[in-house]
Structure formats: C-alpha cells, structure tokens
C-alpha cells in the first residue's frame, strides 16, 4: 500500500511539476509573442499607393525599438493586392486566418474595402486604412479611413469653388469606375445642397488611359467656370497639358489630393499655374508644427514626404495609441472593442477629430485644406480646414 501511495504521489508531483513548468514556459512564450497587424494595399499595378504602409511600418518599428507594447513587439504584415480583387480577398483571408492579425492598419487600395468589408465584419476585425479610396471604405461598420477620400474630396472642392472663390457653373469630371457610382452620387448631391447650385456638368466617362483633350474641350464648350477633375497624379498632369495645348482659358481647375505632389509642380511648371488641389491632411509641403514628428520619422526611415504618407503615419499612430489604452490582453476582439469606444481622438493632422465609435459607417475626416500651384510651387490658400457639415 505504501508503495502504491508513494508511486502515486511521485506521479502526481511529477505531473504537477510539468504542469507548472509548461504553464511558466507557456506564459513566458505568450508574453514574448508578437502583436500581428495586417494591411492590404495596391503596391504594384497601373495605380499604386506604397507610401501609406511604408511609413506605418516605420511607426511600428519605432515602437518596437522602444520596447513594444507591454513587452510585445508589433509584427506588421503587408500584402500586395496587385490591383486584383481576387488577390485582395485571398490576402485578407491569409492575414486573418493564417496569421491571426488583430487589426488592419494603413491599407491603401482601390478595391480592398469593397472586397473585404463583409469578411472583416464577419471576423470582428477593424481596419483603419491610410488611404481609403472606394466608397465602401466609408460605408461599413468595421472600416474607418483617416483620409477624406475622393468623393468627399470632390464635394469639398466644389464647395470651396462656390463659396470661397465665388464661382458658378460648376463641373465635375470623374473616372468611369462603376463601383464609384454611389460615392459620386452622394458627392454631387452633397455639393448641390451645400452650394445651392446645380452642377452644370457631371461627366463620369473619363477612362484611365484616355486622351483628355475631348474632356477639356467639353468643359470649355459647356461654359464651366470651375472644374473638378478626380484623376490621379499622371492624369492631372495630362489634363493640364491638354488645357495648355488647347489654349483653354478662363476656367479654374481643381484637382484632388493625388495631384498635390512635389513632382506635379516640377513637371507642369508654368502649365499648372493657378491649379488647385485639396489636401486631405495638414498640407505636407507646409511648415506646420503638426507635421514635425511625421517629417522626422520619414527622414529617419529614409522615406519621401507625401500626402499619402501622412495617412499611413496617422493610421499607425492612432492604432498604437489605442493598443496602449487596452487594459488586459490584446486580441482581435479587444482591439475592435477599443475602437468602437473611440469617440474623440484629437490630432492636428486632420481637420476633425478621429472618431470610430459604434456607428454603422465611418467618415471621421470630412475636411480638407486647399492648396494652389504658383510658379511650380504649392501654396496653402486656406489657413483653416474647410470642413463639411455632414
């Protein structure tokens, strides 16, 4: 009997020791486990936005260098959707199912929101894109971009042209993207409501590689006084070249934030004189102190400065601050919960506080500053943000 008990006892002690040992080791391992964060961006393809995820990574690297969050390092995994919806969907699945990311930060893709929004909702994960582009980015419960977006950008530009520049005969030329219809519809309706004017020309047939001469001439023919063209950087350049080639004068041209780059100023030179653009964030070429940390980090990480980079920086910074605010374990659920409780994150990089909250749609950034090209250089023409009432 004694022998049995002693055998049993030693067996029990052994098991207990192993259990404690494994618990200890497991606990240590869990503490050192990284916080996985994902992003799906269009990094290659006919149009691409690599800036957002590049600076977001720099933000996370800096946090890691300072010890991480509660001893856990952030592991940032960026997937390239190559401008292909199928790849976009597969990337999101990989990040969420295989990698187990707790949130998506800094995404910048033409279609990622539209492709993955339902999946994010299903998996209870939030996404804070650095550059939200398609309308779905601004219309689902789990995605809240830090940027104004092209559709509100159109509305802001038209509003600025009507109220600040006192122009009538407003026209808008937007790309022929079917998925953008709902966004453009809303933008036009909002612009008409805020300006009290009927938009003279609402042309949605501009294709990616088109010769822009016919659209420029259409603007002239229709008697437009202010034209907003929602093209990306190379298209904005081609547009102004066509304006110059066709000798069209007397029209104020407004481009979206994609045209607000150093290169546009250099390449267009005198051809772009007087052209406006909207800056979704505090204008990146200005010397505002709100941009100091972002500029310092960009220089340290050897990254160029651009408006899109501001988006990536802001989305990553907000995410880090939210992670730090979580009491308890950082998991996908706790991150989502923390964002749903985020109702007033103040930052001077955008014109309105960043709000996530429990709402069904999120458009936290609904303002812009306007910039204008003079002598190949950009000037900030609105010292305060132009904010649209919702």
């Amino acid at each position, binding site marked *: 009997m004694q022998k049995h008990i002693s055998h049993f006892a030693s067996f029990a002690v052994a098991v207990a020791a192993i259990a404690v040992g494994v618990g200890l080791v497991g606990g240590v391992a869990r503490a050192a486990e990284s916080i996985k964060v994902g992003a799906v961006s269009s990094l*290659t*393809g*006919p*149009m*691409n936005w690599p800036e957002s995820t590049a600076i977001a990574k720099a933000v996370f690297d800096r946090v890691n260098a300072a010890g991480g969050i509660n001893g856990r390092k952030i592991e940032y995994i960026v997937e390239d959707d190559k401008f292909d919806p199928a790849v976009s969907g597969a990337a999101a699945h990989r990040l969420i199912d295989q990698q187990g990311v707790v949130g998506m930060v800094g995404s910048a893709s033409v279609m990622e929101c539209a492709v993955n929004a339902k999946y994010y909702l299903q998996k209870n994960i939030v996404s804070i894109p650095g550059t939200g582009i398609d309308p779905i980015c601004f219309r689902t419960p789990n995605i809240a971009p830090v940027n104004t977006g092209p559709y509100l950008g159109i509305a802001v530009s038209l509003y600025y042209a009507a109220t600040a520049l006192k122009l009538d005969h407003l026209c808008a030329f937007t790309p*022929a993207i079917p998925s953008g219809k709902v966004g453009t519809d809303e933008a036009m309706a909002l612009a008409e409501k805020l300006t009290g004017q009927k938009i003279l020309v609402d*042309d*949605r*047939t501009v*294709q*990616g*590689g*088109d*010769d*822009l*001469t*016919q*659209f420029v*001439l*259409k603007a002239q*023919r229709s008697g437009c006084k202010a034209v907003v063209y929602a*093209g990306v*950087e*190379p*298209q904005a*350049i*081609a547009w102004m*070249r*066509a304006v110059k*080639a*066709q*000798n069209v004068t007397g029209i104020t041209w407004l481009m979206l934030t994609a045209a607000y*780059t150093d*290169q*546009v100023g*250099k*390449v267009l030179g005198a051809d772009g004189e007087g052209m406006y653009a909207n800056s979704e964030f505090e204008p990146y070429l200005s010397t505002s102190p709100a941009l100091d940390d972002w500029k310092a980090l960009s220089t340290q990480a050897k990254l160029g400065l651009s408006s899109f980079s501001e988006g990536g920086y802001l989305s990553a910074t907000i995410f880090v601050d939210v992670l730090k605010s979580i009491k308890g374990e950082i998991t996908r659920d706790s991150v989502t919960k923390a964002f749903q409780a985020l109702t007033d994150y103040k930052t001077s990089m955008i014109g309105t506080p960043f709000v996530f909250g429990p709402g069904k749609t999120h458009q936290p950034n609904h303002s812009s500053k306007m910039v204008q090209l003079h002598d190949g250089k950009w000037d900030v023409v609105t010292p305060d943000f132009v904010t649209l009432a919702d």
Partner: protein
Amino acid sequence: MLEALAVGLIPGSAYALIAVSILLTYRMLGVLDFSQTTVGAFGTYTGLALLGMGVPDFLAATLGVVCGMALSAIVGVIMVRWFAGARIEIKSSVTVAVMLALIAIAFRVFGNEQRPLTNIFPRVSFAVFNVHFTLATVAGLVFALLIGAGLALVLRTTRVGILLRALSERPTTAELLGIPVGVLAVAVWAAAGGIATLAITLVAPNRTSNFVTLSALLLPGMAGALLGLFRSVPRTIAGGILVGLLEGGSGYFSAIAPYRDALSFVVILLALLWSQRRDTWDEAR
C-alpha cells in the same frame, strides 16, 4: 460635329502609327506582336530618363527610338533563334510573355515618378474647328502617312522588298533559296519597334504618362489594324484614325459616351462581318 472629328484625329494619328507597326510584324513575320507598345513605351521612357540626365530633347527622343529598335531586335533574335518554325499562336504567346516581363522590368527600372516630357517640337499649334493641333500631333499623322507610303514603295519596287515578301509568304522556301531570313526578320522587328517608340513618344504628352497606360495603347492600335483587315497599309492607317475618331468623337454625344469602348467593339465586329460578306456559309465557317 466637325469639332468631334477634329478631336478624334489627335489620338487617331497615334493609333494609326501603332497600327502600322503591328501590321508590319503581322504581314512580314506572321506574328501578332502584343509587346509592340510595351517595347515602344520602354524606348520612350529611356528617352525621358536621358532627358532627365540633361541630354537635349531631340537627341534624347532619337536615342529612345534607337533603344526601342534595339529592344525589339532582341525580341526578334529570340523569335528567330527559338521559335522560327512555330505556329502563329505560339509566337504571339511569346510576345505576351515579353510584354509582361517588360512591364515588370520597367517598374523596377523607371519607378513610378512623373517625369517632364521631351519637347521635340516648338510649342506651336493651330486651330481647326476650335481644336488645337500641336506640331507633335501633326508629326504623328505625317509620319504615319510617310511610313505607310515608304513601306508600300519598299515592298513593291526594291530588292529588299521582294525578299521581305518572299519571307512573309513562304519562309521555309525563302530560307532554302539562300535568302538571309534571320537577318531580315530581325530587321523587320527592329523597324516595328522603332515605329512604335516614335508613336508613343509623339503621343505621350497628350495622355496619362504611366508605363502601363501607354502600353495599353496596344488595344486601339490593334483595333485599327483590324479595321484595316491586316491587309493594306493605307487601310490600316485609315483604321487607326477611325478608332481615334470613334474615341474622341463619341464624347460629344452624351447618349453614347459611356459606351465608347463597346462602340469600338461593334465597329470591329461589323468590319469583320463586312470582310466576309462574299464568303458562302461553309467557307465562312
């Protein structure tokens, strides 16, 4: 209405040139060259890169054309060396592979930045029906006509032309007869590459200058060649201009403007049906 036609001439002249280069490779070598405009864009961007390094405009553009010719010649060597006897489908597929490879390489080599473009011609333009034509556009049209006429002349009257026609009609027989088929083929590739580069260099100022977008000019170029039924040079030039007119002009009619691309497709379909109108039912099938 006349303004609509005039506007269409601007892209039309570019499409005509591209269509001629595609016709060249098709008629002479039996290959549908999908990499034509990508090679052209590569040559153009090389010229732009040289321009960025301080080379004067005209020289930079010329060197770009030379680069396009050299790149196309390399493709030609690949074709002659490894795919000489292959069917048209195989050869054309190879050009698709070349196109994809070049796009990937171009992204690495040239990056994404916008570049100032070459100003080969002085900034003069004249207006026709309220549409301004720059010298570059006029040059495109003139080149299309000159090259077309030159090609027809070469093929019909010179010795090289006869050799080229032999090459295109009976490549194996020509080779057995001692005609330097390989050299001729590579020369044709080089010429096509040069024409394509010229076309894209002339048209780049008018369009979104982005490597992939410029490569995509292949589609309207091929549509133009198709409208010319891949047969004669004058018809091909007319075909290219017609595609341009459709694209530029349809914007004036708001009812059909959103269906611009479909319109080209319908026209191509009609052209193909028209070309087969005399065939009997069995032949057409």
